[in-house]
């Protein structure tokens, strides 16, 4: 393996970009957006180059590892590295950032300081997102986990809609509360662990048998923070406000990437470091996950604000992801990891296409639309495809992951899986009713002359639709990377898949 510091490089590129964009001389101020996009594309290029060198068959848990002492007195290191799950999430983030930058092209109309700051904040956010997925030191993870709040707070609070202050503070309060609870658990973890100058490394904290109560308390500390972030019922209420008040591109990064830190953290930290507590808490978490699936979907059906509706669909989808993680079967947990990637693309498409409509109509209210399939047929078509992805239509990306989650859960928890499957009926309702209200019906006279999708907007959606189709028909490259990471995690927990009751002794093996 080359010793090139891939992850640090990928993380630094957007940070450098942010500084460049933020302090651009006035003469170049009108190029800020292009420069920001350029940096994000370079970061994507490096990410792809790294991903191509990833060895799925490696015996090491983490690859592209780098490790330097940071605060030795407290055992904190700058340690990064990725396994398959972290890798695919970083790739997803690296794809979504340029897409979002392109989508945000006209978010801040006039070039100048305000616009530069906006794009710089998004690039800073990218750095933190890559950092949080790459960190293999618990404390470093915590630092990135909290640091992410800063750019998001300003992106919502300074650039959002009319109730942006309320939404930003609500977001911050929920996240900080979760973060502080986790901080206590982080410190306790160091105390309970082996200590020493590298005492916060994930490697060192894996495989320790904690005191039962201490382990469970620490697990709860981590899990609470991740549940807020994910977000799970009943700590989800910050999300709809944040999603609707934020600029759509911010909402995409928030819901599509940032929230994945919650579910990613459950796999990396909760399952890996606290196996006993994880199995102990599973029944309660399965219940919460199923509630999230159904509750989020029902709430989505009842929304009249497009952005809030999409946010609630995410509550439902995160329910599926958590369900698969805690089903702790190789199919279910792999399905969850894949779902995290798929959900990023699907939600991005939904938010960004909705934003195209909102920009044209000037309203987020669903009843203000109607008949728009005949006003902007291309946007309507893309909206429908995105919706189909959200309702997990077979042949598109989300189906594979949703099905894996369900089939994996069913192996252990039949009732929970069957109840969650009701979510597929509700998903059809929230997507199709929204489409019906917004797109069908007679062509509205008031919308005459509204332009259909522009070239720039086509470039925004093209990579997302391509991802839907590729991951729907050929998810193997992603699954091949995820599988070893999943089986390693399940080994840490010490669970194996339940055997089928009556295996088909088929000639199947012979045929295949």
């Amino acid at each position: 393996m080359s010793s090139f510091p891939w992850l640090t490089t990928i993380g630094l590129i957007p940070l450098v970009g942010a500084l460049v964009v933020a302090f651009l001389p006035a003469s170049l101020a009108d190029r800020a957006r292009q420069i920001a996009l350029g940096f994000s594309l370079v970061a994507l290029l490096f990410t792809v180059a790294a991903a191509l060198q990833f060895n799925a068959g490696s015996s090491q848990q983490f690859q592209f590892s780098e490790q330097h002492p940071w605060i030795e007195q407290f055992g904190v290191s700058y340690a990064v590295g990725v396994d398959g799950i972290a890798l695919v999430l970083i790739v997803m983030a690296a794809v979504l950032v340029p897409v979002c930058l392109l989508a945000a092209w006209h978010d801040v109309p006039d070039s100048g300081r305000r616009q530069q700051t906006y794009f710089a904040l998004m690039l800073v956010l990218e750095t933190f997102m890559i950092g949080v997925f790459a960190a293999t030191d618990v404390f470093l993870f915590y630092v990135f986990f909290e640091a992410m709040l800063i750019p998001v707070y300003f992106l919502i609070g300074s650039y959002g809609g009319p109730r942006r202050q309320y939404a930003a503070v609500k977001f911050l309060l929920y996240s900080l509360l979760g973060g502080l609870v986790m901080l206590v658990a982080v410190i306790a973890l160091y105390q309970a662990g082996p200590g020493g100058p590298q005492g916060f490394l994930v490697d060192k904290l894996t495989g320790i048998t904690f005191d039962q109560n201490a382990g469970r308390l620490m697990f709860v500390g981590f899990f609470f923070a991740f549940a807020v972030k994910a977000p799970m019922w009943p700590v989800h209420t910050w999300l709809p406000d944040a999603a609707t008040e934020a600029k759509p591109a911010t909402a995409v990064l928030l819901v599509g990437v940032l929230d994945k830190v919650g579910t990613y953290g459950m796999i990396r930290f909760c399952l890996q470091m606290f196996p006993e507590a994880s199995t102990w808490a599973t029944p309660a978490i399965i219940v919460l996950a199923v509630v999230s699936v159904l509750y989020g979907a029902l709430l989505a059906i009842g929304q009249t604000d497009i952005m809030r509706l999409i946010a609630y669909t995410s509550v439902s989808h995160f329910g599926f992801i958590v369900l698969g993680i805690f089903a702790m079967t190789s199919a279910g947990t792999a399905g969850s990891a894949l779902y995290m990637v798929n959900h990023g693309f699907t939600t991005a498409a939904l938010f960004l296409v909705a934003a195209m409509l909102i920009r044209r109509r000037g309203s987020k209210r669903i009843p203000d639309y109607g008949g728009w399939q005949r006003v902007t047929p291309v946007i309507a078509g893309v909206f429908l495809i995105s919706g189909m992805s959200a309702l997990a239509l077979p042949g598109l990306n989300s189906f594979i992951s949703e099905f894996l989650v369900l089939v994996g859960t069913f192996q252990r928890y039949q009732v929970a899986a069957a109840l969650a499957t009701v979510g597929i009926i509700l998903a059809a309702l929230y997507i199709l009713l929204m489409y019906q209200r917004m797109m069908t019906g007679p062509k509205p006279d008031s919308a005459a002359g509204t332009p259909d999708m522009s070239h720039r907007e086509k470039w925004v959606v093209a990579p997302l639709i391509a991802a839907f189709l590729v991951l729907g028909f050929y998810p193997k490259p992603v699954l091949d990377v995820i599988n070893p990471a999943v089986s390693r995690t399940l080994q840490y927990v010490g669970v194996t898949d339940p055997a089928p009751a009556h295996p088909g002794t088929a000639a199947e093996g012979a045929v295949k």
Partner: protein
Amino acid sequence: MHLVQLSASSAVRLAGAGAAQPASGVTSLAWLLVVLPLLGAAILLFGGRRTNRFGPALATVLSWASFGIGAVIFLAMLGRSADQRVEVLSLYSWIPAGGFQLEAGMLVDPLSMAFVLLVTFVGSLILVYSLAYMEHDPDRRRFFGFLNLFVASMLLLVLADSYLLLYVGWEGVGLASYLLIGFWNQIPANASAANKAFVANRVGDFGMSVAIMLMFATFGTVTFAGVDAGVAGANQGTLTAIGLLLLLGACSKSAQFPLQSWLGDAMAGPTPVSALIHAATMVTAGVYLVVRSHVIFEGTPTAQTFVVVAGAITLIFGAVVGCAKDDVKKVLAASTMSQIGYMMLAAGLGPVGYVFAIFHLLNHGFFKAGMFLGAGSVMHGMNDQVDMRRFGNLSGAMKITWFTFGIGWLSILGVPPFSGFFSKDKIIEAAFIGEGWRPWVFGGAALIGAAITAFYMSRLFFMTFQGEKRWPRDAHPHESPRRMTVPMIVLATGSAFLGLILGPTNAIASWLEPVTGRSPEGEPVIAVPVLMSLTLLLVAGGVALAWVQYWRDKVPVAAPAGSLLTRAARQDLYQDDVNEALLMRPGLHLTRSLVFFDSRGVDGAVGGLAALIGGTSARVRRVQNGFVRSYALTMLAGVVVILGAVWVVQ
């Protein structure tokens, strides 16, 4: 080398997918069957306006190309002995996820080929018809793109070698159906009809999904071959559960009781769509599913009984509804429901019925598609009028339509020697085989259904083509162009002769034998000649009654009030009202109260402490006056500063 003759106890299991062998020769091209129309759909739908000019023609050519490949594979299959006709084409590793490993593969066997030929042949004919029928529609490129998407999905459905891949096709046809029902969704009712169809199908998908999960949990695989092989060892309860869940899926897709209510509304789609998707092919997918899963159903008599019951109820239900409707397409839709009820009933009877279920399905594909195209031709000549009370005596103005429709009518009635006779009569016979109450109830239902069918189809035929003119003032009926009449003539030819070719020669039974096994001999509880005469007598009675009411007597232009039953049948026997009362209204209340609960309850309780102190309004004010904000920011800043300080100090 895989010719393992399963030595299962029953001769039925003799063949099945267990004897599959790897695809070779032309069969290895089977993937093109799906890919060609899919390519057409992609070009038309993503290509934009550039493809307006050549798109529809391209779609039609690609569909015919698919038929061509299907025909070649079929001929090659004919050339092999019966035990070598089941082939599996492995494509690629589709879902490799830990314990769940699944390859995408195609099962090319006599059953799937029967469907391939039906779908591509009838589908291509209907595409040709649509070239004329949709000529002046501004969105016809989209229409042809959707139809190609449908053909591709339907072929995937029937060619898949696993339940999960079948499910992809299953949803693909559902999507195409949704898009085409709502093709003219500028009319709000059509958009609602499309949604209804999709949601009803999703209810079935729930069944399909859970069935597949249960299969994986039970057998560790979801391929047809793997599941079939595991059935022998599985317990009754599990098999029954799988069977009932599959039946739920089948009922939604095939519009069987109690999930039938979407089909009538689906007639909102353009008529070629009704002919292809909502008559000839997609709606028969449920029958395919049951026959394809016959090994499971044979292991669970309970689930089989449910299949028969669903079929029997629907065949009567559809027929009764068909008697009351005045909209020509809705009568045909009700009839489709009813005819699929016959197929479902036959499929549930077990080995005695499979062949006739599929046989009737093929015949129905021809005569019903032909009649729908005929109805489209009538609408084309009558300014899109669908009310049969405004038709009458069209036989003169539209000779070809009248003649081809007439053949379809005789075929569905089961008049010998037209196609329907050979399959429907056999289904009635099969329903009368058995012991105890079953043959009397199920056979009786099938027999009564035949009589009612004769009545309502004759009513349709007489009201449309015979009797007096009741045309609106501005109607100038005329025969449709050649591109529409030729497909109708071809389908009528099939409706006339297909049964004669496949039935008495036993061709269909021996063709399907490698999949469904040999049908056991059985004697109906009523002697066959007696039964056949009785059936024909009842059919004649139905026709005579219709003749009296709708040909000899004057048909009022305004519908009479009608009896209680007529009024109920016009309302689809209140199925919509039941659904609304049981599902939609409670659902609406649940959603509304949850939305309220979420903003007041959950948000309030969790956002908590401040609310406890000062109430909701005070809490919001506090947040907005910046107190909480500065507090929160201070906390965040504190964390950052401490970290920085530690780092600097170290």
